[in-house]
C-alpha cells in the first residue's frame, strides 16, 4: 500500500459518495477501508501502515468531507476499538466496530470503582453466570461519557476466591439495559463530564464477553496501554496542544509579559515540542495496534506540561486570570482539554495526571517495567481477592 494507492481510493470514495450526508459518508468511508487504514480489511482498514493514516485525513479534510468528531468518541476509538480488535470474536468485531467508528454508537469505560482506582485489579463489581447470561451488580465511578454512551467496556469479578488478577472477566455492557443507572458527578470545572454508574442485576449475554472467563486482566492491559497513548500520544502539529494555546495568549498580551514568565514559557514550549517529536518517534516505531510501555512516558510528560502551561497562563493573565467563564453545571458531550478559558484549562488539566492511570502509577510502571528496577514488595498477589485488606 502506497500513498498513491490511498489517494486513489480517497478520490474514488469522494466520487461515489455525497459528503453532505454525514453518517452515510462515514459508513462508506469505513466500508472503503479508509477509517483506520491499519485495521484489517473488512473492519474499516486496509492492513496498511498506521503512518499512512494522515495521508487519508489530509486528503479528506481538503475535500471538505465530514469527520467522525473524534473528541466525542475518544473512548470508543482509543480504547474499546483496539481491545475488540485484539480480543473480540469475528461476530463482535463485525457488530461493534463500524458504528463505533462512525460515531453512531458512543462508548464509555466502566473500570474504576470507589474502592478500586489505581488498584483496578481490586475491583468488586460481581458478575455471576446464569444460563447464557451474566448477571452483574456493583458500582462504577468517574465514568466519562456514561451519559451519552450506548455501550461500555466493563471489567467485573467472576471469581472472588482466587488472587485478584486471576478472577476478572471483561465484558461489553449495554448502557440501555435494565439495571444500569447513570448519575452525573460534578467536577472542579463546574461540569459533570464523568458519572457514577450503578449496576443492579444487569444481564449481559455471554456473547458479549470479550476474551476468556478469568482472563479480564490481560484483556484490560490492551485497553489501558491504548488509553495512555490516546491521552498523551496523539499526532499533532507544532503548538498543537496546550503550548499553542498559551503561546497565543502570550502573543496577544504584550503588556503583561515579564522576563521571568518569558523564560518559563520558552522552556515549556521547548519541552512541548520535544514531547511532540517523541510522540512521532514512538508512533513510527510501534507495530500497529500494539503499544508498548513507552506510552506511559508520553502521558506522564503530557500531564506535567499541560498543567505547567495552563498554570502559567492563569498567572500571566493576572487580573483576567482571576475570572472564570461559567460555573453552571453542564453535562458536556465532548471533552476539550484546551477549550474554554484559561481557568478551565488549568482546572481540567489537573485531571490529566489522574485519568487513565495516575502519574504516580505511571512512574512505578516506568521504574519497574522499563528500567527493570526491583518491584515493590506486594501483599496482594497471592491472596484470594476476598481476603485482601481494604
Amino acid at each position, binding site marked *: 500500500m502506497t500513498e498513491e494507492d490511498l489517494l486513489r481510493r480517497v478520490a474514488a470514495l469522494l466520487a461515489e459518495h455525497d459528503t453532505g450526508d454525514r453518517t452515510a459518508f462515514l459508513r462508506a468511508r469505513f466500508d472503503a477501508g479508509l477509517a483506520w487504514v491499519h485495521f484489517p480489511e473488512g473492519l474499516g482498514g486496509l492492513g496498511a501502515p498506521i503512518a499512512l493514516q494522515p495521508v487519508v485525513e489530509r486528503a479528506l479534510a481538503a475535500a471538505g468531507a465530514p469527520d467522525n468528531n473524534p473528541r466525542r468518541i475518544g473512548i470508543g476509538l482509543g480504547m474499546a476499538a483496539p481491545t475488540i480488535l485484539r480480543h473480540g470474536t469475528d461476530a463482535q468485531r463485525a457488530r461493534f466496530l463500524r458504528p463505533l467508528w462512525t460515531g453512531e454508537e458512543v462508548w464509555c469505560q466502566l473500570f474504576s470503582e470507589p474502592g478500586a482506582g*489505581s488498584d483496578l485489579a*481490586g475491583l468488586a463489581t460481581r458478575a455471576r453466570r446464569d444460563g447464557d447470561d451474566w448477571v452483574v451488580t456493583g458500582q462504577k465511578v468517574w465514568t466519562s461519557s456514561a451519559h451519552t454512551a450506548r455501550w461500555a467496556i466493563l471489567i467485573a469479578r467472576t471469581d472472588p476466591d482466587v488472587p485478584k488478577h486471576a478472577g476478572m472477566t471483561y465484558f461489553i455492557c449495554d448502557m440501555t439495559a435494565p439495571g444500569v443507572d447513570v448519575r452525573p458527578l460534578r467536577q472542579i470545572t463546574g461540569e459533570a463530564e464523568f458519572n457514577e454508574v450503578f449496576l443492579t442485576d444487569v444481564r449481559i449475554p455471554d456473547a458479549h464477553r470479550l476474551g476468556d472467563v478469568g482472563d479480564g486482566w490481560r484483556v484490560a492491559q490492551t485497553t489501558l496501554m491504548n488509553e495512555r497513548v490516546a491521552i498523551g500520544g496523539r499526532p499533532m502539529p507544532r503548538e498543537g496542544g496546550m503550548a499553542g494555546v498559551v503561546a497565543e495568549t502570550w502573543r496577544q498580551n504584550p503588556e503583561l509579559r515579564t522576563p521571568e514568565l518569558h523564560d518559563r514559557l520558552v522552556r515549556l514550549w521547548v519541552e512541548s515540542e520535544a514531547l511532540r517529536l517523541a510522540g512521532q518517534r514512538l508512533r513510527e516505531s510501534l507495530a500497529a495496534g500494539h503499544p508498548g510501555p513507552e506510552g506511559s512516558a508520553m502521558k506522564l510528560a503530557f500531564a506535567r506540561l499541560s498543567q505547567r502551561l495552563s498554570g502559567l497562563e492563569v498567572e500571566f493573565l493576572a487580573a483576567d486570570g482571576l475570572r472564570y467563564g461559567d460555573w453552571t453545571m453542564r453535562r458536556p458531550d465532548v471533552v476539550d482539554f484546551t477549550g474554554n478559558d484559561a481557568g478551565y484549562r488549568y482546572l481540567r488539566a489537573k485531571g490529566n495526571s489522574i485519568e487513565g492511570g495516575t502519574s504516580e502509577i505511571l512512574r512505578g510502571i516506568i521504574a519497574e517495567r522499563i528500567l527493570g528496577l526491583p518491584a515493590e514488595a506486594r501483599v496482594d498477589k497471592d491472596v484470594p481477592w476476598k481476603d485482601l485488606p481494604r
Partner: protein
Amino acid sequence: MSQSLVDTDVETQLRTAVAEVLEDNPTKVDDLDGATVWSALRAMGATTLPVPEELGGQGAGWREVAVVAEELGRAVAPVPFLGSVLATAALLRATDDPHAAEALRGDATLVVPLSAWPGGPLPHITVDGDRLTGTVRSVADVRGTLVVPADGALWLTEQADITPVTSLDRTRPVADVEFSGAKAVRVAADGAVEHALRVGAAILAAEQVGIAEWCLDTTVAYLKQRYQFGRPVGSYQALKHRLADLWQEIVLARAAAKAAADALDTGEDAALLAYAAQSLCAEVAVHAAEECVQLHGGIGMTWEHPAHLYLKRAKADEIALGTPGRLRVLLAPLADLPA
C-alpha cells in the same frame, strides 16, 4: 526590636477563638455565604484589629491580623477580610483627615485590581474637579466606602457601578468598578496605596500558610486510610517523601509569613520580608493545593470535595498583590541582588 516568631499567648487565644467560629461554620461548596462568620468576627473585634481604639478599633498589631488571616485561609472562609485589610492599611495613613477616620469606622474598599502589586501600575482614573471617571477591573471584596487611588491621592466615594464577575475563586469574588463622574472627597495620603499593597502581601502570606497547612493535613489523613494494593496508599515511600517535602516547605513558609507580619509592626525590613514571604508562600500554597488534588485521585477532581476551593483560592492568591516573579523583582534590590 523584633518579637518572637512564635505565637504570643494573646495570639494563641485569638487563633483559638477564630478557629472555633470557623469550625461551627465550615465553608460549604454550594453555599458560599460568609455572613455568619463575618458577623462573628466583627463581634469579637477581629475585623478592626489594627485600628486604634480612639478610632473604634482594637489597637492591636498586624501580627494579630496575620493570625486571623491564617485561620481564615485554613477554612477558605468566604469573608471580605483581605479587602478590609487593604482599605484599613491605606486609610490608616491618613487618619488626620476626618473623612478617612470616618471611613475606618465603616466598611471600605481600596479600589485596585486584586492583581495590583506595590509600586506597580494602576488603572487610570480621571479626576475632573471632584469627579472621578474610569474603570477598575477585578477588585476583591467590594463593599462600603470606595477608596480610589487617583492623582497621587485617595478619593472617597460611594458612587459607582459595581458589576460582579464570575470569579475563579468563588470564595473571594471580584467585581468591576466603574466611575462615571462620581463625586468624591480627596484625602491626601502619600504612598498609601503602595503601603497598603505591601501590608496586604504580608498578610496574604499568612493566609497562604493556612491554606497549605489544611491541604497537607487533609492529604496526610486521607492517605493514611485510603487502601489500594492491599495497603494504605500513604505507606508508599514515593508519596511519603513528597509529603515530607511539602511539610518542609510549610516550615519555611510559616516562619517567613510570621516574620513579615511582625515586621509590619516594627517597621524593620518590612518591605523585604513582605516580598520574601509573599513570593515564597504563594508558591507553597499552590503546590500544597495541587498535591492535595492529585493525591486524592478522582475524588480530588470532584465538586463535592472541598480540595478545589483551596486550589482556586491558592491560584488566585498567587496572582493577588503581585505574582511571585514580580515580588522577587521588588525584593532583589532590597537584598542587594541587582539584576
